[in-house]
């Protein structure tokens, strides 16, 4: 780690003020990505602004229509939340499948979305459920939020405060884990809102994406066989030691099928 200054923010406005003043300052949520990057000297913020002390950023509120999750809510809280389990069980189970226990106890939904790791799980849920990302400046629709590898619509100094998920009729997430890191090699979130079906894929490409062909087929008939023969093109998919693009493309279909099966249970 390089040396840096550390400060606790009392309010979102506080944090925004520091960010505005110091272009090299960074927000610290669960630290599960940021601290690791700093330890490896890949990140070198001049200052770290800890959001952990801002009460209003944490917590889950839900009713039959939507679930709102504060940016600083830990994965473990989402996984075990009665409200989330009742309204969107697929989201609770997704959170419970992130990393390991230590990571889930520290990592936050806001940090995960701001980071937009190509292999992160939450982006699939956010995109498939058509969630809204709320920041200190505006509301951003899921379809507008994910811009590319580690890139989002967030502007400099913009802070995620919460995420609002509409409650679907049925949904499921299926993740094929990287055996080493246990991030998603391919994760497919299928959500049937009643008025339409959305299929979002994470891990497979530089950024989360929707599969229109699958959505259309599932809207016509919500059944595993509807997607069994729909393949995503290999071109543009990630290719690495663990999974070449053709394997990833294959896994998208398999995971989509299994997600539909699970959603129907």
């Amino acid at each position: 780690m390089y040396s840096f200054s550390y400060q606790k923010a009392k309010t979102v406005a506080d944090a925004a003020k520091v960010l505005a003043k110091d272009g090299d300052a960074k927000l610290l949520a669960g630290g599960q990505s940021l601290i690791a990057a700093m330890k490896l000297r890949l990140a070198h913020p001049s200052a770290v602004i800890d959001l952990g002390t801002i009460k209003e950023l944490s917590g889950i509120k839900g009713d039959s229509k939507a679930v709102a999750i504060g940016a600083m809510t830990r994965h473990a809280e989402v996984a075990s939340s009665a409200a989330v389990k009742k309204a969107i069980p697929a989201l609770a189970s997704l959170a419970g499948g992130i990393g390991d226990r230590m990571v889930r106890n520290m990592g936050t939904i806001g940090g995960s979305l701001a980071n937009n790791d190509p292999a992160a799980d939450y982006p699939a849920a956010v995109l498939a459920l058509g969630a809204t990302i709320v920041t200190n400046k505006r509301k951003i629709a899921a379809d507008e939020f994910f811009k590319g590898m580690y890139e989002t619509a967030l502007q400099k100094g913009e802070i995620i405060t919460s995420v609002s998920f509409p409650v679907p009729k049925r949904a499921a997430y299926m993740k094929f884990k990287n055996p080493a890191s246990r991030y998603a090699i391919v994760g497919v979130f299928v959500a049937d809102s009643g008025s339409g079906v959305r299929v979002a894929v994470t891990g497979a490409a530089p950024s989360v994406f929707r599969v229109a062909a699958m959505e259309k087929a599932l809207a016509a008939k919500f059944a595993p066989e509807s997607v069994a023969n729909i393949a995503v093109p290999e071109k543009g998919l990630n290719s690495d030691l663990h999974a070449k693009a053709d394997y990833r493309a294959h896994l998208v279909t398999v995971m989509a099928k299994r997600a539909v099966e699970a959603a129907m249970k």
Partner: protein
Amino acid sequence: MATPYIGASIKRKEDYRFLTGAGNYTDDVALPGQTHAHFVRSPHAHAKIKSIKKDKALKAPGVVAIFTGDDLAGAKVNGLPCGWLITDVNGQPMKEPPHPCLAQGKARYVGDHVAIVIAETYPQARDAAELVKVDYEELPAVVRAAEARKNGAPVVHDIAPDNTCYVWGLGDRAAVDKAFSGAAHVTTLEFLNNRLVPNAIEPRAANATYSRADDSYTLYVANQNPHVERLLMTAFVLGLPEHKVRVVAPDVGGGFGSKIYLYAEDVVCTWASKQINRPVKWTADRSESFVSDAHGRDHVTRAELALDREGRFLAMRVTTTANMGAYLSTFASCIPTILYATLLAGQYTTPVIYAEVTAVFTNTAPVDAYRGAGRPEATYVVERLVETAAREMKMSPAEIRRRNFIKTFPYQTPVALLYDTGNYEATLAEALKIADVAGFQGRRADAARRGKLRGLGYSCYIEACGIAPSNVAGALGARAGLFEAGEVRVHPTGKVTVFTGSHSHGQGHETTFGQVVADRLGIPMEDIDIVHGDTGKILFGMGTYGSRSIAVGGTAIVKAVDKIVAKGKKIAAHLMEAAEADIEFKDGAFVVRGTDKKKAFAEVSLAAYVPHNYPLDKLEPGLNENAFYDPANFTFPAGSHICEVEVDPDTGTVSIVNFTAVDDFGKIINPMIVEGQVHGGLTQGIGQALTEGCHYDKESGQLVTGSYLDYCMPRADDVPAFKVGTKETPCTHNPLGVKGCGEAGAIGAPAAVMNALTDALGVRDIEMPATPQRIWRACQESKMKKAA
């Protein structure tokens, strides 16, 4: 004393301190005035070092000193030695390129140590290291064993223009060729034995200090054999008087071989501590461990087995290329030779065997012993061949093995080893039962109904532990002895401190050795402490590797205990006015045979230290004995592993649904500790087969799997609840009848897993680690074959 300690599952004495954070690891050692070191490492796999500029770094805050290869050369610090000289097929010595402690002229792998930066704090050292300007001229790199000898391959060392360290052979080549020409069936396999990163939980660390008062050094180091470390460092590298260097290996958090060796960092910290007259401390971080710890395995092998019509083995022919990495690590040269080819008989009566091993240099981290060291590689060759032969000849894998098992002992193999004892049918029979092999077809059919593929694989391994005797090893090129030393110090009150040259870094010696001594002396275990890991306390030691501790170290202790008892008898005879021949030592007391006269152990020890009523004219006072033990032979643990896997062909995921291991470790001192060792070994064996693969990029020579994001250590949910059993065929040539158990799991498991997997998929081979992607591809290929 109630029950005997030997054979009891006594909870580990050391666990209290480990589990409550009271352990004392090298990084816990804080010396007054200590400085902190960081090593500048090569970012390139192969590069000329044109210049190193350190002036800017020297001015950075907190920097105390910076040294480079030139400084070491100027001070006449030698390179690191290799501890085993291999003589090649032409009678020539292996190529031994210099292994400088800090690179000189060239960097030969990513992570090669180029300079040491010493500062007041670790972050300062690290910051300053970035200011050391090394001007590299990148050279093309070669990383794969199979590429190293190709025409035009980059040359790692000028003294080995074909990148060849040696070509070594063992066995009767002509007889083997003849047997093959007359064989009814020949099974041939070509495969890789994957490179592994050892990944001890505790990274390597050193803290060295120099005392001006008496011109002496103390080095705390995470190491498996402090005396060997000291001997190599003083005699070969630094030219220091051995008695002026104390090496302490305190609590050590795992080694798996990777902490046997003398590493450059240990030497440089020790040397630098005198230059700056302050302690120099270094602890590797995980990224550093990945690139700079000695790796394991990395073989390319072609293996052939000749059989007669009935499936009897006639001959075996094995050609292996072994990747040594960029330099010869301490014992690198003997692993793919002495500890590999000699094991190719396995449990079988194969009459003739020939093995040829070519060791090559590449631009990768040095490769040396890793849990099993040579023996997993040999077992993999033998057991994959045997299982494949059974499939090809439509025989049951159990039957083909039974037909070829060695049944009479002692047995002289055609590859130099003399097995003293064993009972291979017994472990196989037990394993078949525990694994419910009879019910396998039913389970396979059930899996098929669920769209899954089940497979069953066997591995009947043998290992040679406690490498010995020293004179034979010496004739084969060893540059060190292979005995062990022990000392038993009985205090006046009858309490006992035992000093052993073995080193415990997770094995639980403090418990196991304590049980042995408690039984032998008939005193409670609480009265005994086992001390290890300090050249300042222990007379000598060869340390712990190759599952040698109980068989060699334990025996040295037993011999010292025997001397204590013998002397005690003399003292007791005097005290009870009886003839020495009439004294018996039983249940912790010296008894006059046939009478009720006796003296407790503590009474005799007190007499030895308060020698008022004592035969001072004939006997020295005190009760302290030591012993050195050089075994007459290796010990030969063996066993049968049976693995059952289930594959999801849609994704390539495999799960191990059953794993049975029935091992014959000879006499077992602590069954719980042994079972723990087996579980750990099996997990690492499964790791090698399914998850762990060290991967260097072919072009750039960069380590792709340099963190846990990409290097997959097996986790608890990757392994099943193991089913283990034991058979006890005592070793015939040590007093405890023990053989060793530390490596067995890692030796047997990979072949069992891969045999099961190839059975499930109906393919000949899959490369280890058999990751989901590789399995999925194998499924695709066999689907296409079936369709064609």
